[in-house]
């Protein structure tokens, strides 16, 4: 097959140095463009910053909630109180049945006499309780759940135990820690949802700002196309705008989160102090900041690509 020439002047190629020079020049011009319109740029940075700060802030909260719960000894479980006339055999059968459950790690039975003895110690009433004649305290059993057991399983087991002979009452103990874990899961999912929604918001805000920048420079773009700029060269300044808007948004988001943490620190320190815990805020570290800035820049670039695709595909030379 004969060679078919598809370019009137095929030898005209650009060097890598030229490509780098173009990037450096366009980067500088874009920085100037964004900083010369500081009012508009600040508005875009604020909107993108708020959009990033909400999900990122929720992520910080979730990380800290997880850390608080990870260092805590308490675990959810259930307490079984037996009838006063329950036989030892009934108590032993129930304890054996509960102990065989895979979700239970430990079963501890407290007889009526042991309960009375403990009460004497803790109440400080001592021998005066002997005057009662008979022991008013029931035998009881405490079962601890293996970590990670879901609440629904705990409720099912409680219902099963409640039907047994000699059992007076079953109390399911959900510790505040478990509630904290549930809340943490809610926060995580909320953060994800907000991340997606506000991410889309940040993209749209950047896209709309970049679109305005494109409209303001249409004549220049036509001239660039006329003198032989490639599509990449025509797109380039706007991708830089998007990246700068997103990066600036990331900086604002970091500042907002830092400010929020600063405001929340005193009451959180007081709250955790009442549980003999110290406040060690984690998550807000250099890696997090790097992610925040990278995410902002990426969203900005995506936004500008949306605008560029919409507007520049129809650009005519004249």
């Amino acid at each position, binding site marked *: 097959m004969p060679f078919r*020439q598809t370019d009137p002047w095929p030898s005209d190629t*650009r060097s890598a140095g030229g490509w780098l*020079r173009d990037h450096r020049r366009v980067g500088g011009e874009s920085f100037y463009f964004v900083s010369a319109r500081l009012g508009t740029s600040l508005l875009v940075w604020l909107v993108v910053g708020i959009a990033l700060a909400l999900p990122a802030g929720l992520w910080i909260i979730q990380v800290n909630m997880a850390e608080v719960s990870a260092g805590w000894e308490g675990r959810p479980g259930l307490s079984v109180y037996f009838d006063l006339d329950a036989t030892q055999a009934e108590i032993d059968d129930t304890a054996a049945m509960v102990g065989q459950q895979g979700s239970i790690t430990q079963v501890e039975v407290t007889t009526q006499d042991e309960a009375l003895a403990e009460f004497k110690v803790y109440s400080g009433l001592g021998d005066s309780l002997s005057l009662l004649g008979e022991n008013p305290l029931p035998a009881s059993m405490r079962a601890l759940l293996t970590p990670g057991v879901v609440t629904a399983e705990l409720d099912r087991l409680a219902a099963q135990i409640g039907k047994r002979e000699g059992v007076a009452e079953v109390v399911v103990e959900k510790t505040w820690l478990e509630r904290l874990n549930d809340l943490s899961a809610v926060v995580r999912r909320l953060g994800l949802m907000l991340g997606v929604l506000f991410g889309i918001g940040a993209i749209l805000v950047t896209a709309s700002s970049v679109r305005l920048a494109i409209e303001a420079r249409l004549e220049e773009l036509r001239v*660039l196309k*006329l003198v032989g*700029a490639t599509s990449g060269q025509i797109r380039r300044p706007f991708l830089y705008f998007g990246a700068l808007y997103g990066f600036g948004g990331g900086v604002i988001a970091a500042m907002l989160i830092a400010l929020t943490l600063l405001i929340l620190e005193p009451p959180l320190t007081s709250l955790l102090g009442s549980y003999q815990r110290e406040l060690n805020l984690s998550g807000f570290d250099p890696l997090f900041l790097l992610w925040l800035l990278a995410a902002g820049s990426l969203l900005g670039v995506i936004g500008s690509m949306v605008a560029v695709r919409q507007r520049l595909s129809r650009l005519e030379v*004249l």
Partner: protein
Amino acid sequence: MGHVEFKRVTRRFDNGHEALKEVSTEFPEGSMTFLTGHSGAGKSTFLKLLLAADSPTRGSILVNGVDLKGISKRGLARYRRNLGVVFQDHHLLAQRTVYDNVAIPLRVIGMREKDVERRVRAALTGVELIGKEGLYPRHLSTGEQQRVGIARAVVNRPKILLADEPTGNLDPELSRHIMYRFARFNQMGTTVIVASHDVGLIEEMGSRTLCLEQGRIVAEIPARQEGNQAEEHPVAV
């Protein structure tokens, strides 16, 4: 080199109007040609097709034997880097200085800033605008703005120079000056195609002339042999 050939080119618009009808002609490398005719004769469409800003409905336009229809996007950008285009209304960027306007084609090809400066200064010297590189287009007269447009068109040493009514807004003396400047570029090997309805000036230049009427070439006047237009009216380039 810049050899252009139109082969039975027709451009029909959506409303049915045919701006060009079965036009066939050639522009040899290093030639200078005027396109003339009344408004609506098809001169601007002719140049738009050459610029690849539009494409023919039928027929083909070959540049150095390559059909413009078959050029890729990247090839099209390379093609345009070898064209110089001058418009009646200049198309200068109001927010850029004279220097930056002229430098655009050089920066697009990634030229070093030191070389850009040298070439821009040479081009501005050629159109007698040196010293005004820091001004904005609004500070210049119409004639000066047109000369900035010419400097931008030639700064990259194009192989083909297209001009669409380049003297439309200018007084006769300045018009002559600009036409002779084009003739000088042509003498340096650039293929020059100028659309103009200034019949007197075209006759004075004595270059090959194609007369368009209702989208057809109705007459072709060959170039006058005697004299050298550029030397008759010397200008600095």
